[in-house]
């Protein structure tokens, strides 16, 4: 399984950034928390609109199965759903901690967006 995690930094010991579209980095890791890729999301951070949609497209292109983040707005959620990516929300702490929680089945999977649209 490929997991995407929104992060403040480039390593798995970095803190999670709760914002999906506007996190500085998105880390792609495997089940054993090995880092596959650290995506620099900074162009998205400055995007006027649709940052969440673009971030969703970015991870869909990498064939990610599941996203761990804090909040996910409605447009991003629709896009992730269409790509068949599951969304684990309300995550905090480090990237490693979140992945370990996921392995313990301790992450709530969202069936609807948990943030307002960002204008």
């Amino acid at each position, binding site marked *: 399984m490929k997991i995407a995690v929104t992060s403040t930094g480039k390593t798995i010991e970095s803190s999670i950034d709760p914002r999906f579209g506007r996190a500085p980095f998105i880390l792609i890791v495997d089940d054993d928390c090995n880092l596959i890729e650290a995506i620099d999301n900074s162009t998205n951070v400055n995007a006027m609109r649709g940052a969440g949609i673009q971030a969703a497209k970015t991870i869909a292109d990498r064939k990610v199965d599941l996203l761990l983040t804090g909040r996910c707005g409605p447009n991003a959620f629709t*896009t992730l759903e269409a790509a068949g990516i599951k969304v684990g929300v309300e995550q905090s702490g480090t990237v490693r901690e979140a992945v370990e929680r996921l392995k313990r089945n301790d992450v709530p999977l969202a069936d609807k967006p948990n943030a307002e649209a960002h204008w």
Partner: protein
Amino acid sequence: MIVAVASGKGGTGKTTVATSLAMVLGNRAQILDCDVEEPNCHILLKPTILTTDAVNLPVPSVDLQKCTLCGKCGEVCQFSAIVPIGKTVIAFPELCHGCGACSMLCPEKAIQEVPRNLGVVETGMAGPLEFVQGRIRIGEAMAPPLIRAVKTQISGDKFAILDAPPGASCPVITTVKGSDFVIMVTEPTPFGLNDLEIAVEAIQGLGIPMGIVINRSDIGDSGVKDFCRNKGLPLLMEIPHHRRIAEGYAKGAPLIESMPEYADKFKKLTDDISMIIGIPSKGSSL
């Protein structure tokens, strides 16, 4: 001549200035309320509305039977309003700016444009004054195309007064673009100054001459005046706080009705602006 009346924040008296200016010009003027989220010139001017036209934006609708998921539409859209993803193409009409690029470039002709209503443009008369306003549909966020529709009503042979939305965002720039002059209305307080600085900076990028009107000029401090001096912005008028103005405003009466002595000051304001931009305000060729 096109004059936009703007302000860094709401509640500074922008509409008071715009309506007064239009009223002293009378049949030589038209007022266009571009504050489409909260148009309120009509409260002071009480126009008779003669025409109401819906403003629609063409947004994409994808026929998935024809779509081959080539991805071209998603690449061309700057606003993430159309996204080929997984085995489908999602459209987000509320993000679409109606540029038409996606439907034009789709190799399969799978994208059709369907109208999405943004609001209405209304025209009418307020006494001798030509009146135009835009009203955005409730819940709609895409103001610029509606503002552009309002501005198509500018007649060219009249003095057009545009009441801009407050702030310094996209709708303000859309309103102000193409104007000959911008009047910035502000209050002489630190809050007023802060928002004024942001708005002045945004509008200066357009290279349009600008002047300042200070409302409630007897409150606050000298910060706004210092700012004008440093930036070389002409101080066009000061309107002190006056009980009769406040009472008139509360009743929905325009400033020059509750304070007739202001009619001359606003006439002089139009002359001053004409002088700054070098267009005569009198005569037929405004």
